[in-house]
């Protein structure tokens, strides 16, 4: 398995102007209300830094952030601890967790995420370097997942080629997809 350190980002379609304080409040409320087995620790504000994390919900197993990388705001889920199973299971779990988090935000705040576009990052330069080999190694697992997510729609996955970057795929599916629909497809 290349790595368990998988990050997934879905982009905002509506709600770009929500203030960082709102995200801070929302994430803080999530910590208060949390009763899962995983641990949510703290909220950090980095809204003063351009094109990076805006507001972070830090956890032990994963972090969640409103993220402005490449000046495209979205929700980034960053898995830090192993989640059980092989790469296919961990990849599926990461995408599902991201969709669930987006969906939760859609129900709590005036935001809508675009389901047809996502970024997949393998946050591990040692075990998953940004190479074609890594791409080939995950291709089969990814294909199965994307087929499940987007049925038979055409999907393009483009690898970012800059060598210094982590292995990153920008994935785009034909048609309009909501995160709710993606969750339904994953169930």
């Amino acid at each position, binding site marked *: 398995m290349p790595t368990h350190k998988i990050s997934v980002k879905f982009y905002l379609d509506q709600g770009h102007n929500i203030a960082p304080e709102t995200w801070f*409040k929302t994430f803080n409320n999530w*910590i208060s209300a949390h009763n899962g087995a995983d641990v949510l620790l703290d909220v*950090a504000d980095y809204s*003063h830094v351009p094109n*990076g994390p805006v507001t972070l919900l830090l956890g032990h197993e994963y972090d969640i952030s409103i993220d402005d990388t490449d000046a495209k705001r979205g929700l980034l889920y960053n898995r830090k601890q192993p989640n059980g199973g092989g790469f296919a299971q961990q990849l599926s779990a990461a995408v599902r967790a991201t969709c669930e988090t987006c969906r939760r935000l859609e129900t709590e705040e005036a935001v809508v995420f675009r389901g047809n576009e996502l970024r997949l990052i393998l946050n591990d330069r040692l*075990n998953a370097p940004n190479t074609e080999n890594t791409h080939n190694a995950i291709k089969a697992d990814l294909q199965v997942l994307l087929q499940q997510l987007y049925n038979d729609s055409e999907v393009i996955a483009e690898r970012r080629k800059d060598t210094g970057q982590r292995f990153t795929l920008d994935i785009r599916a034909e048609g309009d997809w909501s995160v709710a629909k993606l969750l339904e497809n994953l169930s």
Partner: protein
Amino acid sequence: MNANWKEELRDLIPEDLSAEIDTFEAQIEQKKQGQIDDRVFAETRLRRGVYGQRYDNGQRFDGQVTKPLQYPSGDLLKGPDTVWDAPGMQRIKIPYGGLTTDQMEVLADIAEEYSEGILHITTRQDIQIHYVHIEDTPDLMRRLAAVGITTREACGNSIRNVTACPLSGVCHTETFDVTPYSHALAQFLLGHPDCQDFGRKFKIAFSGCAQEACGLTSMHDMGMIARIKDGKRGFETYVGGGLGAVPHQAKLYSEFLPPEELLPTAQAICRVFARLGEKTNRARARIKFLVAKLGIEEFIRLVEEERKILPDDPAWTAYLDDLDNYVEEPLKIAAPLNGVARPKAFDTWAETNIYKQRQEGYVVATICLPLGDITSDQMRNLADIARKYVKDTIRATVEQNIILRWVSESDVVSLYNDLCELELAEPGAGTIVDVTACPGTDTCKLGISSSRGLAAELRTQLAQQNLQLADAIKNFRIKISGCFNSCGQHHVADLGFYGNSRKINGYTVPHFQVVLGGQWTENAASYGLAMGAIPSKNIPAVIERITDNYVENREKDESFQAYIQRIGKKDVKELLQGLTQVPAHEIDASYYTDWGDIREFTIGDMGKGECAGEVVSLVQFELSGCETESFESQIHLEEDDYEAAYKTAFNAMLHAAKALVKTQFLDVPEDADAIVEEFRTRFCDTELFYNQFAGAKFANYLFRVHEEEVAEYTRDIAHQVVEEAQLFIEEAYACYGQMNVV
């Protein structure tokens, strides 16, 4: 099986550094198995720069109640009251702030993979990343070591990052470039045996001249200012300065310390500090208290006595031969900026962020970082930009910025455009907008009020007013600390603030103590005056009133420091009248939250800070290291590497013997023969190392192995020595206990 960084980087890391990191990794394993005391492990990790962070006691206040955080590792601790799984801060030492582009890339990578993709420049030219899991730290350290960075002694009771003026070598007013001297001293003292038994940390700074601020030597434990005497280089040397809750101006140690005396004098000072410095009362353990207690004359006498008996060390002068090899070179030829179209806002940026070097045709460009933060992407791309315009002439500054030196003037517009692409072309470097702040309540356990929250707010407000601000205040320094410990260096700012709180109407309300008129120039020559605590939310109004009043009422060319001295505390109090008031909660609840945080304010989530480190005696610390070696020898044995197991076990015994010898003879030589001989004379012949039942049996383990010539390392031979080493170390602990020197 997945790859690992240890194997991947094996050939890129110096052997000694690699061994140190392996040892730390083994200590982490030992701690998990309950084989190291909490305090010893805390100090061990602190000396690797692995620092605790807010909420690492496993509790968090959510605005209404404090709730436990149910970490998977349960009760396992990594220090007193510090939960194992709680993420922490990793401090990374950057001597004199000097960075290479390769280092910038690795820093960007590790922040992305082990942290949250943010690098924070500190007020002492370090870099910090936050929310790091302790089990990731050995690999993180290996990746840094592969590009020449060590985190060793970044925290704990040790020699911290040696800082230096970031303009050294290119400055108009400097006497000479202090960079190679600061580098030499940092390398010499790193891990030095005489710097392992301090009661608190020890900070060193270098400055190229007396009049500018850059070196801040007056507020350091030891500060050097470049001097020329009779055509020869040397240093005006100061000792015993420091900020903290009780700031002290450093005292003159020597008007002229020649370079060949720099290293041995520092060593002698460290010895005196280790021997006589306070170890029990942490609040009075910095060297400033020792200097104050002894008086500078007596302190100097003791250091000079110590200097006389120091065993000669070739390293003291070896670096002098390399001084001429230290040369910074530009990438591009010097050329003027002629006729290039200047983009809108370029001139505003250039006015504050460009410094013309002493060398004709070259400039220093300051990349102004909000709150000292830069994203991994920005850092990586900044490395690319640096490669385009300069060689590895990049430095982090104590004002939490990054500078590129040796930029050809002809490239300045192009550089500006490139920085704009990264949103790194913020103007206002070194002005009132360029607010400095420590991490405060964001991540520090000691933080009381939100220094970063306030700094962010002030940056925003002042940047909006920038064009309207009077020239007289434009270059003011604002510095903010989250508590009285002064990591934000509030004492040396024109407008300084440190966090505190007040109980009002049954609520705890965040406040800042206002400290006015500190002097940033002349190496932080004087400290500001505390004027009273003001609610956090009124601090922007404080700045407005004070600066307006200064602009209106100052006498001709009167400095802010002189103005504050002239009007005095009483007038300032009057000026701030009304701003101390806090409206009732039901009228304005915003006063009861802090800047940048929506939660109701509390001080209940503060913890015990780790900046004081843990007081662990040198012998205890070294014996713990021997236990780690013994542990490593067992692992070698399990891996059927008998030679390594044998040798590591012998080293564990040898080092335990050395630790004991050091209690009587600090200068015990490094070689095995000498250590064994000293141990035999001082501990075996005297029966100090003597078991009431087994007699000299355990001592004989060491003597036998030392003399033994092994033809073939077999499992049996290795196993025997591994077992003996464990017993020897246990006896060493017992011996130390009987010596009653704990």
